[in-house]
């Protein structure tokens, strides 16, 4: 049994007297698709921020493929193979969609030595071809030369994720990939994302509030509540759990199926 791609032990974060996350212990095998659920403020984004180096944990350890990455800066962690997308798409509004991904790809391809990115051209063949490929994979080719500031929300989210996928990360953390998208479109968006990732052998962890999407796309579910993980199992088991239904998914206990439809 090979080492888990991500191993988190007793992870916690406090801001002064406010505890944002506590005692998180989780182990992800490579290429698993994990759904993370939990109400707002439960610590999901804090967890992602710590794993990706944006926040330094107050206690605990994070290991990526055997290496201790606790407290390392986000740029180092990205270079090691962990990438993420954001609740609010973090794109470059002044650039076109193509340039957004091209920048991401170019950084990924530039030689790692000190002056590597000073002398490498931005539009190198590798960066350009990866950008074109990703535009197609995420089905946003028609927006190629549009300025990112004018892009509709769904396209922004796809662009955001496309940028995260440039450079071939091995672990991808998606923070609410379908947030801000209308209910009718959520499913299709997630479908596009998941097919784009399908052949890349990536381990994916996505945060989601729509339980149907979680059921459909996740192999495993982590449920966050009050800063820690309170359930960890298959979607069917976790979502049927009464406690989860009371605290997170919001349907009445003993209802036939989880989800908002019953409330």
């Amino acid at each position: 049994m090979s080492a888990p791609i991500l191993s988190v032990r007793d992870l916690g974060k406090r801001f002064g007297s406010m505890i944002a996350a506590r005692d998180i212990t989780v182990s992800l095998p490579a290429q698993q698709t994990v759904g993370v659920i939990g109400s707002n403020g439960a610590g999901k984004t804090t967890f992602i921020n710590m794993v990706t180096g944006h926040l330094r944990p107050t206690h605990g350890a994070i290991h990526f493929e055997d290496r201790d990455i606790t407290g390392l800066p986000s740029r180092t962690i990205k270079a090691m193979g962990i990438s993420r997308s954001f609740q609010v798409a973090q794109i470059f509004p002044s650039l076109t969609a193509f340039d957004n991904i091209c920048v991401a790809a170019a950084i990924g391809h530039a030689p790692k030595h000190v002056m590597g990115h000073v002398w490498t051209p931005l539009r190198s063949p590798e960066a350009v071809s990866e950008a074109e490929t990703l535009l197609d994979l995420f089905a946003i080719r028609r927006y190629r030369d549009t300025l990112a500031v004018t892009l509709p929300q769904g396209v922004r989210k796809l662009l955001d994720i496309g940028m995260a996928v440039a450079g071939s990360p091995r672990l991808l953390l998606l923070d609410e990939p379908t947030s801000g998208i209308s209910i009718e479109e959520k499913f299709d968006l997630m479908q596009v994302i998941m097919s784009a990732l399908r052949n890349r052998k990536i381990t994916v962890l996505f945060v989601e509030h729509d339980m149907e999407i979680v059921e459909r796309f996740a192999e495993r579910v982590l449920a966050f509540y009050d800063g820690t993980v309170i359930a960890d199992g298959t979607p069917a088991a976790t979502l049927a759990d009464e406690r989860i239904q009371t605290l997170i998914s919001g349907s009445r206990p003993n209802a036939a199926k989880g989800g908002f439809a019953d409330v």
Partner: protein
Amino acid sequence: MIQHSRIIASSAFLAAAAAVFVLPDWMISLATIAFANGLVVLGLIVLWRAGLVSFGQALYYCIGAYAVALVGRWTGITDAILLVLIGGACAGLVSFVVGFLLARYREIFFAMLSLALSMILYGVLVKTESLGSTDGFSVIVPTFLGYAPHQDGLLAALYWLVLAVCAIAALLVDAYFHSVAGALAVPLRDNEIRVEFLGLSVSRLIHTKLVISGLLGGLGGALAALAVGHVDPNMSYWTTSGEFVFITILAGAGSVGPAFVGSLLFESVRSFAVAMLPQLWQLLLGSVLLLTILFLPQGLGSLITRLRWRRGVEAP
């Protein structure tokens, strides 16, 4: 269209070099100073593209100038090229050290801190009697690879030296703008956090830009010192920095060429204004600045971009 602009740039360079034989001395003098200052503006543009406006480039300008003056006076070095390189290197070194502090700041605080640093140098120079205090002191007449030209020859030699340095700097900076690090200026301005998440150290990127602009500022100051023949603490005063910023606005921070064209324009307008309306040249400058900001927010560079767009050459 890179070919197109390369042809224009090369022709302009050759024309400028040949101008020595045609134009009167005072024009060549003016152009020499203007192009030297253009180097400082180029440094400002490097920072401006990343969203950083420095109100303290005068610091490096002054260091470059004083380095040339002091080295010329205290050591036996008279070679212009060597002096200019030394001036640039000193300024570059200072910008490297100072960069550790400055790279942490953005926007107004960056502007103010850079201003403060230049004013610190000003204060030091003014209080230092051995360096001539507010009067400054003169710079030796340089030699050029062994030759010691005088009068017209000296004028031409300095002019060509400045042109050569500007051309080399322009080529290198243009290449930089096309590299990953240089092209990241706009993403840095747009969304630093994302740049960091994409795998690059934002502070190192900015530190690099600070060093480049410091180097360019120092080279400009060194050349100016040789051209004018005199240095004084005013070269570090905030109004000097203000003028460089002014030219950058005039030029527009898009690319390399406008730095020099803008500088030439500014020097010309300033000389004209001082000559015609000695009491009112600031009013003229201020009005030009205001009008430029109101009606040509991207500077003169945008005029060229708009022309190109109308001819269908490139996207707006």
